[in-house]
Each structure stands twice: as structure tokens, then as C-alpha cells.
């Protein structure tokens, strides 16, 4: 029983879990729907092991979806493996099995997503001043939630993977015959990479590393300036978290559609 409704400690005797009259349940509901839909889509796609690279006959351009980058499995199309192949080709092992777990953990331990899923999935609390259903609460003081403090490690790794995504976006401008090419897919890939960088840089860990951990800004003017800029981005971290989920899904879906021949990539150059 929540202490909010238990008056044994001298609190006001009010039996309702909350007296809020607004639609406090809407935000957790939207989070469950949005995060749930994305996780289902991403899970299906990473285990599909097809339609991740545009290599249909006649297609000069080559786009690799971020869900399969870097493509380390021996099952990958050789042209899609920019950094070699060494993972076995098993149906249950995603082709990008090296990067995906860390990216998942980066998002799972992100301060924004923590707020979102603690509220929406664990109902801890479902909304402000709405009693949670749990009898006990120890927060992030014990394993496994103590591991949320490892966000810093996943941030470093996510930076590396975003570098790889940037490389993929640049390489996509080079056609198979070595000429320069540029189409709608390139715009989508570049936009996705820019958003991924903004999300990664706006991370609370990055804000701390850049300058937040300093006590004497006056001794570090460059880091102070960078901290100010990261702080501005950090204020948009929630929006960037959702925008990058959307941009990742859109980029992947677009490349799947082009790869499957559902539609062709409108070319601007080459």
C-alpha cells in the first residue's frame, strides 16, 4: 500500500490514489504506445536479416541501414561490410550484434528514457502526485538499477557507433562505379546522422564530461563555452530522443523499401 493513502503515519486521511482531475494518464499511455511500437519494429527488423542494403540489379547507389551497421556477420553482403566480417551467420544473431546491444543500453540508461519508462512501464510514479502501486521502492541504489550509472560507458561507445554511421552516410555518396551520386536516400541518411549526433552530444553525461564536472569555469574558458552550448542542446534532449527514434525508423524503412524494390530512390545527381 502506498503511504499516500495510508494515514497511519499521521498524514491526512484521504483514500484516493490521486485527486488530480486532468488527463495525467495520457503521457504514460503515449510513452507505452510510442516506445512499444518502436521496440517491436526494431526487433523485427534486426532479426529479418534482409533488405538492409540496396543492391538490386541496376541500382548504382548503395545505402546501408543503421540497424545493420557495422555489418560484421559473414552473412552480410560483402559490399555492406565496411569493417570486415567475423561474426557467425546465425538466425538469432543480428548482423550488427556488436553495436546494437550498446546502442540499446545507451538509450536504456539515458536520463530521459529512464524518466519515460519509469513512469510509463514501472508506474514509479505513473505521474506526479499519483500514488504508485509498489509496496517497496529502493530506486537506483541496488542491482540491477544501480547499473544505470554505467550510462557513461555506453555514451562513449555510442559516440563510436555514430562515427560509423557518419562513415556510412558519406560512403553512400559514392556509386558502385566510383562516381559521385546523390539522391533522396542520401538526404535521409545525412539527416539521420545529424540528429544522432545532436542526441548523443546533448546527453547529460556529455554535458558533465564537457564541463559540468568543473568547479572553476574561469580556469577553463573553452570548456565553459562548450558546456554552455551542450547545455542548450541538453534542454532539447527529450525532443531529440524521440526525433532520433523516428529518424532511425524512417531511415531503415526507406532503405528496406528501396532494397525490396517497393520504390526507387529519386536521384538528384547520378
Amino acid at each position, binding site marked *: 500500500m502506498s503511504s*499516500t493513502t495510508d494515514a497511519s503515519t499521521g*498524514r491526512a486521511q484521504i483514500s484516493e490514489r490521486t485527486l488530480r482531475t*486532468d488527463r495525467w494518464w495520457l503521457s504514460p499511455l503515449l510513452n507505452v504506445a510510442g516506445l512499444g511500437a518502436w521496440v517491436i519494429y526494431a526487433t523485427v527488423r534486426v532479426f529479418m536479416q534482409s533488405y538492409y542494403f540496396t543492391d538490386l540489379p541496376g541500382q548504382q547507389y548503395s545505402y546501408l541501414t543503421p540497424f545493420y551497421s557495422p555489418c560484421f556477420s559473414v552473412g552480410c553482403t560483402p559490399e555492406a561490410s565496411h569493417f570486415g566480417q567475423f561474426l557467425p551467420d546465425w538466425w538469432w544473431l543480428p548482423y550488427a550484434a556488436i553495436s546494437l546491444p550498446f546502442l540499446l543500453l545507451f538509450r536504456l540508461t539515458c536520463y530521459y528514457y529512464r524518466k519515460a519508462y519509469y513512469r510509463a512501464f514501472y508506474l514509479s510514479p505513473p505521474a*506526479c502526485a499519483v500514488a504508485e502501486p509498489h509496496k517497496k521502492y529502493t530506486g537506483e541504489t541496488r542491482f540491477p538499477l544501480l547499473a544505470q550509472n554505467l550510462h557513461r560507458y555506453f555514451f562513449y561507445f555510442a559516440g563510436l557507433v555514430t562515427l560509423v554511421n557518419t562513415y556510412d552516410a558519406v560512403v553512400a555518396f559514392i556509386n558502385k562505379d566510383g562516381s559521385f551520386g546523390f539522391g533522396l536516400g542520401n538526404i535521409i541518411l545525412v539527416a539521420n546522422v545529424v540528429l544522432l549526433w545532436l542526441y548523443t552530444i546533448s546527453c*547529460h553525461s556529455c554535458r558533465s564530461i564537457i564541463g559540468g*564536472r568543473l568547479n*572553476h569555469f574561469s580556469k577553463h574558458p573553452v570548456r565553459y563555452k562548450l558546456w554552455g552550448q551542450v547545455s542548450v542542446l541538453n534542454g532539447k534532449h527529450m525532443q531529440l530522443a524521440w526525433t532520433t527514434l523516428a529518424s532511425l525508423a524512417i531511415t531503415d524503412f526507406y532503405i528496406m523499401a528501396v532494397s525490396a524494390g517497393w520504390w526507387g530512390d529519386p536521384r538528384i545527381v547520378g
Partner: protein
Amino acid sequence: MSYWAHFRVWRGDSDKGELVDYPAEVNEGEVVLDIIHRLQQTEAQDLAVRWNCKAGKCGSCSMEINGRPRLACMTRMNTFAEDEVVTVTPLRTFPVIRDLVTDVSFNYTKAREIPSFAPPEGVEPGEYRMQQVDVERSQEFRKCIECYLCQNTCHVVRDHEENKEAFAGPRYLMRIAELDMHPLDSADRQQAAQEEHGLGYCNITKCCTEVCPEHIKITDNALIPLKERVVDRKYDPVVWLGNKLFRRGEAANKNR
């Protein structure tokens, strides 16, 4: 333009209590505290309420209005529909004394548990020298008016009375963050935050920020940076390597 509103006010003490219905006249420009005062003058002359400045600066009239922790003096009546029932209850995290007045001494206890500002050894009062840029970040936290709305809404203690012993609450973790960021404070705040004041209980769901009448970004600017400073200290491999390579000790870490 006046109208008659339907108020439901919690009346009682720590033994028993109930929501009591009152009709109340509302005039243009009034706030909830005005209506509570009108009820004291008319329908409920023994209604207990704590208030002082009526300007959102003393933090006395904290209560829950339609279930949301608010300052009664800063909650305008024109934010409610005329036919809406306005429910007013005391803060639900603290023991009630009578009607809308609660015993907030939990917060005084927590305040006393935090060691005060500790200047470096050999630096006497009057000799403190610091740059404005080094202190302005924590000046945001000095806007706190001690209304305890954040302490009241934080589910760690609101829903779990047993955590009151171990958890200082957002207001006092913010105080620790303020001291830890201070360029002249020499005490070890990070270890104390984690091990003595329950920083790990905070799951950064941001209700403290949502209810703050001073719009202090408690979570983003105090609690998360404090958590990150603990991570710097206890978990970050790069910081650990830097400290080893450049032979930096705890004192240097504090003086960064």
C-alpha cells in the same frame, strides 16, 4: 464579474478528517488563497491554513489543489472552469496538524543533516575570492523559497514513508549539489550524497522540477549533475585513467 464556485476542502486532524463542500464567491483576479480566506470569513471560521506573503515568495501556502501540489497564492481561479469542483487538501507527504496545515519538520531535520559550507583550510572569512562565472550556476538553486512542494511530490517519500530516514529529498540533494559545485567548498559532498543522503533513490522522474514554483530545473541542473559527479568519481574509466596518469588525488579533483 463574480460567480459561485464549488470548493471541497479537507477538514480534520491526524486522527480523522474528510472533504467538506463549501460554496464560495469568486471575484475577478482572485487566487485560491483568496477563496480560502473568504471561507474563513464566512463558512468555516476555524479553518486552519498557513500563509504569509501572498506573493509566491515565502513558500508558506503550499497545498494540493485538484490533486496537484501548488502554492495557493499563485493559483489563479481563472485557470478553473466556473462549474469545476475545486478540491483543496493538505500536503499528503507530511503529517497533518489540522485542516490544511502540515508538520514539515522532516525538512528541517534533513537540512540539519547537511554539513554547511566548508572553506579550504587557512582561508578565513573575508578572504574568500571567486569569479562570478564560477558561482552563477549554483545561484539558480538559491532561488528556492523552501515551499517543500518538491519534497512533497517526490514519490520516494510520498509513497514510501520508510524511505524518509535514508532519503534527503530533492530540495536537500539540490543543496548538496550547490555546495559541491561551489569553487571554495572543500568538503566531500559526492560520497555523502550517495551514501548518506540517498541520491541513488532518485529515479529522475522530474516531478520536483514540474512542481517548483520558482521554475528551478532541479533534476537537470542539480540532481543529474550530482549523479554524474558521483559517476565521475566511482565509475568513469577515463577519469580514473586521467587521475592515475597525472597522479591527481581527491584534493585536486575537488579543485578542478
